[in-house]
């Protein structure tokens, strides 16, 4: 078996609020191989972003990783010192965020912000960092990189800013790239360009990618494997083909049904009734049962485990 780039086991990230402990991520496990793109899908608030921030160890207070293991190239990130973790961030593991408009510092030039990565991780001087920044901008398809490098973020469009973010994330050829809804804030044509760019870079440099999204179209386009999350837990984990051809969890099925299809005329799209449960009042038994069309009495009592439905396809449901 291929050695895994990243193995997350039983990750638990809790937020201690005044109303109680919110288990945003509650025993999540998955893995990513080199060159593989893993998509994490789910509704807002299901713990996707917290999972990715946990891997970066950037969960902001009052959130805290309280349990589990995050093995990166065999090394547990949760046991690393702050300094060692910093050496990995932006270097071997990097991240692209959802909001290109606000993710760049408005008062520094692109050269300053992009060059910073080279200055701290590769100890390059200013001039070398500038040269590499220009080369990086060129690599992510920014026209006129010599000019753009001197720009401030507000002088660039959203798509261009996201390219700069990608350039920043890929600057040190990371082994793992975490992209948290990288195209959500962009319009559709720019989305396609950014995804295409990520795909080509992923193939060219064998970067493992974790793609966090709620857009199943993006998943179908990009992913090798898919992890479906619901209420802080993994409910299904399968290869992209298997998942689309053979979704097992009622939640996954629901997500698929809510997609418009090219060959059907529909008055109204299907949607999953209800909304994500309040994390402080998790339903007993299966977390999804109040919204599940297949729910039985059993589902309200017994909490299902993530079990192998068949080789390389895990499902958390009593009825599979």
């Amino acid at each position: 078996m291929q050695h895994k780039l990243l193995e997350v086991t039983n990750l638990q990230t809790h937020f201690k609020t005044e109303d109680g402990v919110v288990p945003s991520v509650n025993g999540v496990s998955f893995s990513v191989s080199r060159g593989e793109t893993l998509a994490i899908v789910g509704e807002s608030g299901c713990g996707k972003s917290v999972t990715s921030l946990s891997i970066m160890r950037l969960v902001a207070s009052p959130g805290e990783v309280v349990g589990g293991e995050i093995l990166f190239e065999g090394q547990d990130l949760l046991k690393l010192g702050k300094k060692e973790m910093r050496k990995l961030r932006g270097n071997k593991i990097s991240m692209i965020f959802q909001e290109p408009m606000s993710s760049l510092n408005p008062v520094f030039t692109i050269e300053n912000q992009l060059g910073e990565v080279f200055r701290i991780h590769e100890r390059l001087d200013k001039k070398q960092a500038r040269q590499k920044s220009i080369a990086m901008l060129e690599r992510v398809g920014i026209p006129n990189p010599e000019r753009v490098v001197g720009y401030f973020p507000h002088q660039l469009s959203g798509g261009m800013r996201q390219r700069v973010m990608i350039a920043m994330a890929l600057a040190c050829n990371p082994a793992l790239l975490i992209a948290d809804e990288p195209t959500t804030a962009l319009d559709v044509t720019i989305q396609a360009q950014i995804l295409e760019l990520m795909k080509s870079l992923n193939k060219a440099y064998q970067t493992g990618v974790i793609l966090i999204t709620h857009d199943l179209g993006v998943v179908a386009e990009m992913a090798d494997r898919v992890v479906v999350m619901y209420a802080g837990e993994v409910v299904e984990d399968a290869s992209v083909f298997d998942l689309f051809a053979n979704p097992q969890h009622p939640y996954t099925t629901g997500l698929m049904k809510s997609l418009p299809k090219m060959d059907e005329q529909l008055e109204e799209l299907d949607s999953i009734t209800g909304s994500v449960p309040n994390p402080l009042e998790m339903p007993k038994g299966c977390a999804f049962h109040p919204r599940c069309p297949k729910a039985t009495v059993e589902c309200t009592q017994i909490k299902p485990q993530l079990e192998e439905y068949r080789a390389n396809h895990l499902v958390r449901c009593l009825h599979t």
Partner: protein
Amino acid sequence: MSSFSPLHHRGGEVVRNYLIKSVLQIIPVLLLISLIVFILVRVTGDPVALMLPETASDEDRMVLTRALGLDQPIYVQYIKFMGDLLQGDFGTSYRYNLPALPIILERLPASFELAIASMIIATLISVPLGILSAVKRNSYLDIFITGASALGKAIPHFWLGIMLILLFAVRMKIAPVSGRGTFEHLILPALTLGVGIAAETTRLIRSSMLDILGQDYIRTARSKGLIETLVVCKHAFRNSLIPVVTIMALQSSALIGGALISETIFAWPGMGLLIVQAVNGRDMAIVQASIFVVAFIVILGNLIADILYRLLDPRIKYK
């Protein structure tokens, strides 16, 4: 920070136009101030009564009133007043028997000295405390700093000034009680003013930093693997300064004429002291001229604040 040069890449012409426009905007403001000053000074009492002894005859009063032009209709007085103003003539001080403007300009260096010294003290105190308080928010240190700045804001200047004199000048004898001259003379008045400004600025920096530390680009900076010091002192502080610098520039210009209490306590020969004395002695020319000078400095301070704001934030466009 050499890569930061918004003035540069926008071209000198835009900046020059902006400056010319800003300076032109000062004119109507000064006109309005001249009118207000003119009216205020004339409705607050009769200078002739103050200048002459109580035993003076009605004839003496008439002579002086005519000599001062106070017998003329009010609009004639205003036209004459404006005409003199345009020639830089703010009138003659009754008390010093000298032109008012030079007397005031002579006091300016002392006022600038005190304002700059107190701003330096305020900055030295408030920047580290404000940052610390934000970074360690809700810790005991934060509670202590927030409490101390509330106290610093609440303590009246006259009380703090007197206490400082009692402690450092009377008891410990390490600073002079009052007056101006050496560096030692500057310490206590600057401290008195600086503490109050620091208290306010600390709170300002704290809340500005808290706001900035929650921004997405701070998370980006951390995700690049930057050390926390660089995240806080470069990425966050520079942004948090934008509102702070604006307010500090306004405060320091207000200080030049506004340090009345501290200047009085420490007998600091600045504008503040001069204004207090002129008001008490009903020395109209000095009052008029000093209000004008202070107003001009505040306007200038505004302009500087505006320029600093643009320098710090490249998103602001020159119009």
